[in-house]
């Protein structure tokens, strides 16, 4: 009686499970190299009085490894080159590269190394890791959503908020928000 109920429940759960998730678990496993083509790392910082300013990093590299049996053992490594920051306003770019913000000359890389990946839905996961910028490391969280899987290419939409003051980049607060809103599209190619 008990076993029958459990079996029914399991069968129902299997039926209810979206096909997409099944595809992900079955086919997504593997190692991917993040490619700049098809990827974008954008950010927005709110301004006092409304609005904000947007920017993006043009150069970055990284890898995504998805574990077939245990999503929690998946890994993400991302390196961003702050020298490549672009806002559409040259004077602001120069300011961001300078020691007022990124100090790109002395700290040429911003690194993210994931420490844990937790599934939060059929196609979503919470990625926790250590972010290092200007010699300071703090734990940060990003939400990743699977945006597509075709052939050997996987695409994620990643969002998250980072407090810039912790990384010695508090210049301009409270005129400009301490919260940096990241919005990334990361496309990985298998291999």
């Amino acid at each position, binding site marked *: 009686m008990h076993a029958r109920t459990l079996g029914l429940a399991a069968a129902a759960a299997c039926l209810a499970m979206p096909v997409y998730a099944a595809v992900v678990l079955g086919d997504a496993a593997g190692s991917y190299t993040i490619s700049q083509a098809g990827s974008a790392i954008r950010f927005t910082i709110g*301004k*006092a*009085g409304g*609005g904000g*300013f947007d920017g993006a990093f043009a150069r970055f590299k990284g890898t995504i490894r998805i574990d077939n049996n245990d999503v929690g053992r998946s890994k993400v490594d991302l390196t961003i080159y702050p020298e490549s920051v672009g806002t559409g*306003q040259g*004077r*602001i770019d*120069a*300011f961001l590269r*300078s*020691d*007022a913000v990124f100090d790109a000359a002395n700290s040429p890389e911003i690194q993210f190394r994931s420490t844990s990946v937790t599934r939060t839905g059929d196609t979503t996961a919470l990625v926790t890791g250590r972010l290092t910028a200007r010699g300071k490391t703090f734990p940060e969280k990003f939400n990743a959503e699977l945006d597509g899987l075709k052939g050997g290419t996987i695409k994620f939409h990643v969002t998250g908020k980072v407090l810039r003051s912790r990384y010695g980049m508090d*210049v*301009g607060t*409270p*005129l400009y928000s301490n919260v940096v809103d990241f919005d990334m599209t990361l496309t990985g190619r298998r291999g």
Partner: protein
Amino acid sequence: MQTITNTATRYGWASIVLHWLVGLIFIGQFILGFVMVRTSSQRTAFELIQLHKSLGFLLLGLIILRIAWRLGNATPPLPPSVGTLERRTAPLAHLALYAFQLALPLSGWALVSVSTLEIPSMPFNLFVMPNLPLPESDAAESFWASAHWYLAYASIALVALHICAALRHHFLLRDSVLTRMITPSSAGE
């Protein structure tokens, strides 16, 4: 309490305090303006510029108050020791000083309003000061930057003349022109 307002023979405390407060901040703004555009650290420069903007808005408020006070109060006449030429030119110089006190903060406000950097103004981090309704562009920004710059140079020359005239009255002519702008009681002739 009676020494707050001006009378027919002397300046009151309100005029005196406004005069020195505006004067000190005005001179401070000259120095800050020169330093901030020559600072190599971008961070320090940014912070100095925001301070310059805060003080500029404070100055604009003070100068509006000062002009209102001047218009609503008696202005004590110049002492008899003042010669004919100076009696004619001093009011013009003072009018020009008031015009510059208004024009400098206003041109600075116009500059930040049209700047393509779109940096908000937040005096002393207290509140957001809206921009003047002027279209932003690189051309407008360089125009107002030059205007602000030339107005500052002209003001420095005028303030220097004003200071020299006050010192001449005090040390050469030995009249009450300077002392009556220091306390209300020292000039009651």
